[in-house]
């Protein structure tokens, strides 16, 4: 419980810290200058403005200028010139085509100050790629210091929606802990886990658990390892042989940890052999070829596919189907769900993969988080309808869902 309070306290401190950042509005120093008109070179932009780009890590400055009077007639491109001192050597920060009057200069460092001027360039490119250019420059402006903000204001709406979603999940977790009975609908795939392993026990054949080809930097793989822990516990009690071929070394280490603990929890630590969880290859199709070989030779009775799968999903599922195994699959890759639906006995669709560990464990806090997810779903559905109704009356608030 203390950790939850710590989290809420930490977030509120961060928000308070950010407030001063909003107040720092640096008034841009703006001088109106006039450039010397060369014979064929265009007039320089009459005015220039430069100020810190908001909501960034202080590595960018927004430069804007009034178009040169000869913009249409003469100008081919504008050059944004930058220097560390008002008279010092100017370097080309970047170029834009004519008709454009803004440029974001990303080549600046936080803490240093810069001076800018804009050159309107009239360039004629002859065939042998030499070119004749006329240039008209604007007044120099500065100094401008890029500032790093502590809070990205454009993502305030994301922060609010995230806090509401997380608050809902935490609320229902706490409510579930206080013992309130929680109804959770049936998911066929998860109910079938027990009798799939039971079938393997009767037939004295193996159970294969395939945790996907993604590494530990994918939440679906972490969810798969959690489900593996539950499956290993059932296999340990039934004394069924569990085989876990993995495609990533980090997943191998984590999976071994999870299966060893599971065997320990049901009081059979001796039955766990480290080579049950074995690395095959990092390669997507090498992994599929190896598992196909194992499946056709060992003819397992039950197969689990949980985690991140890509094109190899159907290779595994179709071979498993051909070997006569009960197959239960769950993935967070929408493109692969149709193949599992076609070739497996049961498929956990998207979110159901993440709910599996809560269903198998029946632990109140985990079930509570499912109710929190439903609340968030309800909230989003409500948001869709409210935004649509508001739009009907002319209020276009859809930007509260903007992601930038």
């Amino acid at each position: 419980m203390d950790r939850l309070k710590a989290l809420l306290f930490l977030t509120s401190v961060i928000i308070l810290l950010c407030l001063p950042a909003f107040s720092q509005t640096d008034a841009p120093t703006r001088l109106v200058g006039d450039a010397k008109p060369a014979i064929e070179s265009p007039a320089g932009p009459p005015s220039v403005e430069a100020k810190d780009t908001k909501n960034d890590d202080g590595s960018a400055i927004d430069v804007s200028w009034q178009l040169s009077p000869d913009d249409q007639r003469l100008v081919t491109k504008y050059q944004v010139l930058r220097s560390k001192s008002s008279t010092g050597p100017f370097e080309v920060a970047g170029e834009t085509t004519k008709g454009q009057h803004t440029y974001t200069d990303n080549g600046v460092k936080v803490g240093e100050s810069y001076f800018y001027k804009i050159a309107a360039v009239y360039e004629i490119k002859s065939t042998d790629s030499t070119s004749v250019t006329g240039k008209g420059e604007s007044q120099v402006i500065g100094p401008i210091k890029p500032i790093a903000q502590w809070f990205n204001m454009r993502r305030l709406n994301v922060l609010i929606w995230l806090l509401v979603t997380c608050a809902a999940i935490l609320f229902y977790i706490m409510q579930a802990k206080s013992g309130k009975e929680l109804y959770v609908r049936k998911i066929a795939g998860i109910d079938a886990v027990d009798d799939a392993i039971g079938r393997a026990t009767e037939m004295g054949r193996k159970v294969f658990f395939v945790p996907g080809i993604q590494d530990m930097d994918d939440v679906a793989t972490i969810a798969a390892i959690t489900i593996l822990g539950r499956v290993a516990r059932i296999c340990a009690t039934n004394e069924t042989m569990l085989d876990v071929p993995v495609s990533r070394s980090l997943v191998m280490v984590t999976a071994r940890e999870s299966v060893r603990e599971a065997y320990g929890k049901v009081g059979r630590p001796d039955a766990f052999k480290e080579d049950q969880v074995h690395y095959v290859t990092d390669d997507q199709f090498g992994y599929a070829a190896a598992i196909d070989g194992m499946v056709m030779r060992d003819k397992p009775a039950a197969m689990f596919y949980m985690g991140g799968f890509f094109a190899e999903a159907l290779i595994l599922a179709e071979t498993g189907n051909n070997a006569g195994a009960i197959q239960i699959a769950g993935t967070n890759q929408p493109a692969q769900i149709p193949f599992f639906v076609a070739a497996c006995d049961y498929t956990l669709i998207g979110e159901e993969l993440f709910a599996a560990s809560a269903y198998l464990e029946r632990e109140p806090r985990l079930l509570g988080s499912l109710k929190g997810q439903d609340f968030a779903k309800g909230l989003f559905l409500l948001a869709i309808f409210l935004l649509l109704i508001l739009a009907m009356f002319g209020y276009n608030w859809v930007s509260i869902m903007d992601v930038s």
Partner: protein
Amino acid sequence: MKKYYYWIILAALIIVLILLPKPLIVSPTVSTIITVLLGLALAGVLVLTLRGHMIGRRTVFLFIGVSLTLPFFMNYRMPIKVSPEVQTLYDAIAKLPPGSKVLAAFDYDPPSAPELQPQAEAFMAFAFKHNLKVIIMGLWPQGPQQADMAVTKVLQEPEIRAKNLRYGVDYVNLGFQSGNEFVIQRMGTSFSGMFPRDIYNTDYDKIPLLNGVENFSNIDFVFNLSSGQPGTVEWVQIAVDRYGVKLGAGNTAVQAPSVYPYLSSRRLTGLAGGMTGAAEFEQATKEIGKANTYILSQSFSHMVVIAFIIIGNAALFVGYRKSKQKGA
């Protein structure tokens, strides 16, 4: 003895195939006869199923193998209609003025080459003919190699050879960088930070084409060929959403459905999906290549799959009738 005669048949078959006259092309009339025979064979299987003999997996495999291989020997071209999403992709590239800089992101590997290499070749040919400056890079190790193959093949075309395009001035290959979507993120701030050297180890700032190209704001269009992750989804999530880049993509057919939502919300300017997308893209850019010859095999195999769906439902129907007779 029985165990080894498989191998003898395989060896004999290979020898016969090698000795056949080359190249083996069949006249259009014979092609139509073969097509009719294939259709009759499928009808035969349907009759068999209706009479209660359920066919196994291997028959399906045999028909798929045959239906994909035979069209290679036929010379018969299919009429192709360009779909809206390929048309928008072509229009986005066609309206780029000469000299604009295009980032070509190659995020696929040899297994996806059949669908994406024709698109790569059509894109390179079109870009070079319209004086677009192409900057190649890839989030997959083999991507830039596929790009290199496409460029060398396209440079042999007489019209492009005449333009004597120079590496480093008209096109450049920055190679592969590991780090998945974080590569795109870093490119948002600085290309040279992520790609200090190109594949021939010349420094970033020594390449004429790249001076003034700091990050996405100096790029007019990004064309991404993708067959998985990292790929078009990441380019939309980061390059388009955060850095406002104009993105067009060629995807394998399996990847395309998950990218469609970005197309309908205009965060993707166009999409050429699968082999038909490749053939349509070749049609739109008038760079006819391998995709148009593959499309005939595609059509045959699709018809076979559809036929077997019908046969499968016939088997279901026969199953009902039998259980009803037993039950009645």
